[in-house]
Protein backbone atom coordinates (compact mmCIF):
# COMPACT_ATOMS: atom_id res chain seq x y z
CA UNK A 1 0.00 0.00 0.00
CA UNK A 2 1.29 3.44 -0.86
CA UNK A 3 0.29 6.99 -0.01
CA UNK A 4 -0.76 8.83 -3.14
CA UNK A 5 -1.75 12.50 -3.37
CA UNK A 6 -4.12 13.55 -6.13
CA UNK A 7 -3.77 17.25 -6.97
CA UNK A 8 -6.38 18.45 -9.45
CA UNK A 9 -9.01 21.19 -9.51
CA UNK A 10 -11.48 19.01 -11.43
CA UNK A 11 -13.55 17.21 -8.80
CA UNK A 12 -14.69 14.45 -11.21
CA UNK A 13 -11.08 13.51 -11.95
CA UNK A 14 -10.13 13.52 -8.27
CA UNK A 15 -13.10 11.28 -7.42
CA UNK A 16 -12.37 8.85 -10.27
CA UNK A 17 -8.72 8.52 -9.32
CA UNK A 18 -9.53 8.24 -5.63
CA UNK A 19 -11.91 5.32 -6.17
CA UNK A 20 -9.56 3.54 -8.58
CA UNK A 21 -6.48 3.91 -6.36
CA UNK A 22 -8.32 2.96 -3.17
CA UNK A 23 -9.61 -0.19 -4.89
CA UNK A 24 -5.98 -1.08 -5.50
CA UNK A 25 -5.41 -0.74 -1.76
CA UNK A 26 -3.67 2.64 -1.75
CA UNK A 27 -4.23 5.45 0.72
CA UNK A 28 -5.22 8.66 -1.05
CA UNK A 29 -5.17 12.31 -0.12
CA UNK A 30 -6.44 15.11 -2.27
CA UNK A 31 -5.73 18.76 -2.92
CA UNK A 32 -7.49 21.04 -5.37
CA UNK A 33 -4.80 23.66 -5.90
CA UNK A 34 -1.05 24.06 -5.65
CA UNK A 35 -1.39 26.02 -2.40
CA UNK A 36 -3.54 23.34 -0.81
CA UNK A 37 -1.06 20.66 -1.89
CA UNK A 38 1.95 22.52 -0.49
CA UNK A 39 0.17 23.11 2.83
CA UNK A 40 -0.39 19.40 3.41
CA UNK A 41 2.47 17.69 1.60
CA UNK A 42 4.80 17.62 4.62
CA UNK A 43 2.17 16.15 6.89
CA UNK A 44 0.96 13.58 4.35
CA UNK A 45 4.46 12.77 3.05
CA UNK A 46 3.18 10.89 -0.02
CA UNK A 47 5.09 8.26 -1.96
CA UNK A 48 3.71 9.56 -5.24
CA UNK A 49 1.84 12.66 -6.44
CA UNK A 50 -0.51 12.84 -9.42
CA UNK A 51 -0.24 16.52 -10.33
CA UNK A 52 -2.50 18.39 -12.74
CA UNK A 53 -0.67 21.02 -14.77
CA UNK A 54 -3.32 23.69 -15.27
CA UNK A 55 -4.83 24.77 -11.99
CA UNK A 56 -5.80 28.23 -10.77
CA UNK A 57 -3.26 29.96 -8.53
CA UNK A 58 0.37 28.83 -8.48
CA UNK A 59 1.66 27.54 -11.78
CA UNK A 60 3.34 24.14 -12.06
CA UNK A 61 6.87 25.48 -11.97
CA UNK A 62 6.12 27.47 -8.82
CA UNK A 63 4.63 24.37 -7.18
CA UNK A 64 7.66 22.24 -8.04
CA UNK A 65 10.10 24.93 -6.89
CA UNK A 66 8.34 25.32 -3.53
CA UNK A 67 8.37 21.56 -3.11
CA UNK A 68 12.14 21.73 -3.54
CA UNK A 69 12.37 24.51 -0.94
CA UNK A 70 10.53 22.27 1.50
CA UNK A 71 13.15 19.56 0.93
CA UNK A 72 10.56 17.28 -0.64
CA UNK A 73 12.09 17.11 -4.11
CA UNK A 74 12.55 13.32 -3.76
CA UNK A 75 8.77 12.72 -3.96
CA UNK A 76 7.86 11.09 -7.27
CA UNK A 77 5.59 13.21 -9.44
CA UNK A 78 3.42 12.06 -12.32
CA UNK A 79 2.07 14.97 -14.35
CA UNK A 80 -1.52 14.37 -15.44
CA UNK A 81 -2.24 16.94 -18.08
CA UNK A 82 -3.97 18.05 -21.26
CA UNK A 83 -0.77 19.87 -22.21
CA UNK A 84 1.22 18.44 -25.11
CA UNK A 85 5.00 18.77 -24.65
CA UNK A 86 7.84 18.33 -27.10
CA UNK A 87 10.35 15.59 -26.17
CA UNK A 88 13.08 18.13 -25.42
CA UNK A 89 10.77 19.99 -23.04
CA UNK A 90 9.86 16.79 -21.23
CA UNK A 91 13.55 15.89 -20.88
CA UNK A 92 14.32 19.34 -19.47
CA UNK A 93 11.55 19.05 -16.89
CA UNK A 94 12.63 15.55 -15.94
CA UNK A 95 16.22 16.70 -15.36
CA UNK A 96 15.12 19.51 -13.11
CA UNK A 97 12.41 17.85 -11.04
CA UNK A 98 11.52 14.31 -9.95
CA UNK A 99 8.90 13.90 -12.67
CA UNK A 100 8.74 10.20 -13.37
CA UNK A 101 5.94 10.04 -15.93
CA UNK A 102 3.48 12.10 -17.98
CA UNK A 103 -0.09 11.01 -18.47
CA UNK A 104 -2.14 12.92 -21.00
CA UNK A 105 -5.81 13.67 -20.47
CA UNK A 106 -8.16 12.13 -21.39
CA UNK A 107 -6.57 9.04 -19.83
CA UNK A 108 -7.49 5.41 -19.55
CA UNK A 109 -7.85 4.59 -15.83
CA UNK A 110 -6.41 1.08 -16.22
CA UNK A 111 -3.38 2.43 -18.06
CA UNK A 112 -2.91 5.08 -15.37
CA UNK A 113 -3.08 2.47 -12.61
CA UNK A 114 -0.47 0.34 -14.37
CA UNK A 115 1.84 3.30 -14.66
CA UNK A 116 1.33 4.23 -11.01
CA UNK A 117 2.16 0.65 -9.96
CA UNK A 118 5.26 0.70 -12.17
CA UNK A 119 6.56 3.79 -10.40
CA UNK A 120 5.73 2.48 -6.95
CA UNK A 121 7.66 -0.69 -7.67
CA UNK A 122 10.75 1.21 -8.76
CA UNK A 123 9.83 2.60 -12.18
CA UNK A 124 12.32 3.13 -14.94
CA UNK A 125 14.38 6.01 -16.20
CA UNK A 126 12.34 7.30 -19.09
CA UNK A 127 8.82 8.59 -18.73
CA UNK A 128 6.43 7.06 -21.24
CA UNK A 129 4.05 9.09 -23.44
Amino acid at each position, binding site marked *: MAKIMIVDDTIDIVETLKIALQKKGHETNEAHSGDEFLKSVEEVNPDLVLLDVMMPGLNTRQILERLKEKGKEHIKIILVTVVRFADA*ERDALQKEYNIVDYITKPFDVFDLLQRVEKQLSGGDDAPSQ
Partner: protein
Amino acid sequence: MLPANEEEVTSVIYWQDVTREVEDRISEGGDILLVIHNATDFSDLAEFINKVPFRTIIYISLTKTFETIQPALKRLSKNVHVVDCISTSLLSEAPKGKCTYRDLPQTLRDMSKIIEEFSMAHNHSYIFLDSLSHFLDFSMPEGKESSFMFFSNVKEAMKTNFCKAVMLYSVEGNQSLRSIPYSHVNSVMGVDISRTSVDWE
Protein backbone atom coordinates in the same frame (compact mmCIF):
# COMPACT_ATOMS: atom_id res chain seq x y z
CA MET B 1 -44.76 16.78 -11.30
CA LEU B 2 -42.52 13.88 -12.36
CA PRO B 3 -41.55 11.12 -9.94
CA ALA B 4 -38.00 11.56 -8.62
CA ASN B 5 -36.48 8.75 -10.69
CA GLU B 6 -37.84 9.85 -14.08
CA GLU B 7 -36.03 12.13 -16.49
CA GLU B 8 -37.33 14.51 -19.10
CA VAL B 9 -35.64 15.82 -22.23
CA THR B 10 -34.50 19.40 -21.68
CA SER B 11 -32.71 20.05 -24.95
CA VAL B 12 -32.18 18.43 -28.33
CA ILE B 13 -29.13 19.26 -30.45
CA TYR B 14 -29.29 18.73 -34.22
CA TRP B 15 -26.09 18.19 -36.22
CA GLN B 16 -25.81 18.57 -39.96
CA ASP B 17 -23.07 16.75 -41.83
CA VAL B 18 -21.07 19.27 -43.85
CA THR B 19 -18.25 17.91 -45.95
CA ARG B 20 -18.03 19.91 -49.17
CA GLU B 21 -18.94 23.46 -48.21
CA VAL B 22 -16.78 23.71 -45.10
CA GLU B 23 -14.98 26.87 -46.27
CA ASP B 24 -18.35 28.59 -46.91
CA ARG B 25 -19.66 27.59 -43.52
CA ILE B 26 -16.54 28.94 -41.82
CA SER B 27 -16.86 32.25 -43.73
CA GLU B 28 -20.52 32.51 -42.76
CA GLY B 29 -19.64 31.72 -39.15
CA GLY B 30 -20.08 35.30 -37.92
CA ASP B 31 -17.91 36.88 -35.23
CA ILE B 32 -17.55 33.74 -33.12
CA LEU B 33 -17.42 30.21 -34.45
CA LEU B 34 -17.43 27.46 -31.83
CA VAL B 35 -15.72 24.31 -33.07
CA ILE B 36 -16.42 21.08 -31.20
CA HIS B 37 -13.66 18.59 -32.03
CA ASN B 38 -11.97 15.38 -30.96
CA ALA B 39 -8.44 16.28 -32.08
CA THR B 40 -5.59 15.51 -29.72
CA ASP B 41 -2.69 17.06 -31.59
CA PHE B 42 -2.28 20.36 -33.42
CA SER B 43 -1.53 18.48 -36.65
CA ASP B 44 -5.01 16.90 -36.49
CA LEU B 45 -6.48 20.37 -36.99
CA ALA B 46 -4.12 21.44 -39.78
CA GLU B 47 -6.61 20.65 -42.55
CA PHE B 48 -9.35 22.61 -40.80
CA ILE B 49 -7.06 25.61 -40.22
CA ASN B 50 -6.12 25.63 -43.92
CA LYS B 51 -9.81 26.09 -44.79
CA VAL B 52 -10.07 29.39 -42.94
CA PRO B 53 -10.53 32.18 -45.51
CA PHE B 54 -8.22 34.85 -44.02
CA ARG B 55 -4.50 34.48 -44.51
CA THR B 56 -3.44 35.56 -41.02
CA ILE B 57 -4.23 33.42 -37.99
CA ILE B 58 -3.43 34.12 -34.35
CA TYR B 59 -3.36 30.78 -32.53
CA ILE B 60 -3.65 31.19 -28.74
CA SER B 61 -2.62 27.93 -27.15
CA LEU B 62 -3.43 26.96 -23.58
CA THR B 63 -2.73 23.26 -24.05
CA LYS B 64 0.18 22.82 -26.44
CA THR B 65 3.63 24.35 -26.20
CA PHE B 66 5.02 26.17 -29.23
CA GLU B 67 7.65 23.43 -29.57
CA THR B 68 4.94 20.83 -30.13
CA ILE B 69 3.03 23.02 -32.60
CA GLN B 70 6.04 24.14 -34.64
CA PRO B 71 6.57 21.03 -36.85
CA ALA B 72 2.94 21.10 -38.08
CA LEU B 73 3.07 24.84 -38.88
CA LYS B 74 5.11 24.06 -41.98
CA ARG B 75 2.17 22.13 -43.41
CA LEU B 76 -0.10 25.17 -43.23
CA SER B 77 -0.70 27.53 -46.10
CA LYS B 78 -1.52 30.33 -43.64
CA ASN B 79 0.57 32.82 -41.76
CA VAL B 80 0.11 31.55 -38.19
CA HIS B 81 1.35 33.53 -35.22
CA VAL B 82 1.32 31.41 -32.05
CA VAL B 83 0.64 32.83 -28.58
CA ASP B 84 1.97 30.19 -26.19
CA CYS B 85 0.33 30.56 -22.77
CA ILE B 86 1.69 27.35 -21.25
CA SER B 87 5.48 27.21 -21.62
CA THR B 88 6.29 29.97 -19.12
CA SER B 89 4.37 28.16 -16.38
CA LEU B 90 6.37 24.96 -16.86
CA LEU B 91 9.80 25.50 -18.28
CA SER B 92 12.48 27.21 -16.22
CA GLU B 93 14.64 28.17 -19.20
CA ALA B 94 13.28 31.19 -21.03
CA PRO B 95 11.60 29.80 -24.14
CA LYS B 96 13.09 31.09 -27.38
CA GLY B 97 10.54 30.17 -30.03
CA LYS B 98 9.39 32.58 -32.73
CA CYS B 99 6.10 33.21 -31.03
CA THR B 100 4.65 35.32 -28.23
CA TYR B 101 4.78 33.92 -24.71
CA ARG B 102 2.20 34.82 -22.12
CA ASP B 103 1.36 33.53 -18.65
CA LEU B 104 -1.57 31.18 -18.43
CA PRO B 105 -4.75 33.26 -18.00
CA GLN B 106 -6.49 32.47 -14.72
CA THR B 107 -10.00 33.62 -15.57
CA LEU B 108 -12.27 34.12 -18.57
CA ARG B 109 -11.80 37.88 -18.11
CA ASP B 110 -8.01 37.47 -18.44
CA MET B 111 -8.62 35.29 -21.48
CA SER B 112 -10.81 37.85 -23.20
CA LYS B 113 -8.16 40.55 -22.54
CA ILE B 114 -5.55 38.48 -24.40
CA ILE B 115 -7.97 37.96 -27.31
CA GLU B 116 -8.74 41.70 -27.37
CA GLU B 117 -5.03 42.57 -27.33
CA PHE B 118 -4.17 40.34 -30.29
CA SER B 119 -7.22 41.29 -32.33
CA MET B 120 -6.22 44.95 -31.93
CA ALA B 121 -2.67 44.19 -33.04
CA HIS B 122 -3.73 42.00 -35.97
CA ASN B 123 -6.82 43.44 -37.70
CA HIS B 124 -8.56 41.24 -40.24
CA SER B 125 -7.31 37.97 -38.80
CA TYR B 126 -8.81 34.81 -37.41
CA ILE B 127 -8.12 34.40 -33.68
CA PHE B 128 -8.09 30.73 -32.62
CA LEU B 129 -8.40 29.78 -28.96
CA ASP B 130 -7.20 26.29 -28.04
CA SER B 131 -8.95 25.43 -25.91
CA LEU B 132 -12.14 26.87 -24.50
CA SER B 133 -12.62 23.57 -22.62
CA HIS B 134 -9.94 24.80 -20.22
CA PHE B 135 -12.44 27.37 -18.92
CA LEU B 136 -15.90 26.08 -19.75
CA ASP B 137 -17.62 22.74 -19.35
CA PHE B 138 -20.67 22.49 -21.60
CA SER B 139 -21.78 19.31 -19.88
CA MET B 140 -22.57 21.37 -16.77
CA PRO B 141 -25.60 23.69 -16.62
CA GLU B 142 -23.73 26.50 -14.83
CA GLY B 143 -21.54 27.14 -17.91
CA LYS B 144 -24.29 29.30 -19.42
CA GLU B 145 -24.00 32.25 -17.05
CA SER B 146 -20.23 32.29 -16.63
CA SER B 147 -19.66 32.44 -20.37
CA PHE B 148 -21.99 35.34 -21.17
CA MET B 149 -19.60 38.22 -20.38
CA PHE B 150 -16.71 36.43 -22.03
CA PHE B 151 -18.51 35.95 -25.32
CA SER B 152 -19.87 39.51 -25.22
CA ASN B 153 -16.36 40.93 -24.76
CA VAL B 154 -14.91 38.75 -27.52
CA LYS B 155 -17.75 39.62 -29.90
CA GLU B 156 -17.16 43.34 -29.29
CA ALA B 157 -13.42 42.97 -29.93
CA MET B 158 -14.03 41.01 -33.14
CA LYS B 159 -16.43 43.66 -34.50
CA THR B 160 -14.13 46.55 -33.58
CA ASN B 161 -11.03 44.99 -35.10
CA PHE B 162 -12.61 43.23 -38.11
CA CYS B 163 -11.50 39.84 -36.81
CA LYS B 164 -13.24 36.52 -36.34
CA ALA B 165 -12.83 34.19 -33.39
CA VAL B 166 -12.66 30.42 -33.60
CA MET B 167 -13.15 28.81 -30.20
CA LEU B 168 -11.93 25.23 -30.14
CA TYR B 169 -13.67 22.98 -27.64
CA SER B 170 -12.44 19.41 -27.29
CA VAL B 171 -14.77 16.56 -26.39
CA GLU B 172 -14.18 12.91 -25.67
CA GLY B 173 -16.64 10.11 -26.43
CA ASN B 174 -20.29 10.91 -25.89
CA GLN B 175 -19.69 13.84 -23.56
CA SER B 176 -22.83 15.92 -23.07
CA LEU B 177 -22.97 19.38 -24.67
CA ARG B 178 -26.21 20.45 -23.05
CA SER B 179 -25.13 24.00 -22.26
CA ILE B 180 -23.54 25.02 -25.57
CA PRO B 181 -23.98 28.80 -25.52
CA TYR B 182 -26.16 29.11 -28.65
CA SER B 183 -27.22 32.60 -27.76
CA HIS B 184 -23.65 33.90 -27.48
CA VAL B 185 -21.83 32.33 -30.41
CA ASN B 186 -22.91 32.88 -34.00
CA SER B 187 -22.24 29.40 -35.24
CA VAL B 188 -21.29 25.94 -33.96
CA MET B 189 -19.40 23.41 -36.05
CA GLY B 190 -18.26 19.87 -35.28
CA VAL B 191 -14.96 18.45 -36.53
CA ASP B 192 -14.79 14.68 -36.16
CA ILE B 193 -11.34 13.25 -36.79
CA SER B 194 -10.93 9.52 -37.46
CA ARG B 195 -7.60 7.82 -37.22
CA THR B 196 -6.46 4.53 -38.65
CA SER B 197 -3.05 2.93 -38.87
CA VAL B 198 -1.52 2.95 -42.33
CA ASP B 199 0.84 0.26 -43.62
CA TRP B 200 3.43 1.91 -45.85
CA GLU B 201 4.75 -0.63 -48.32
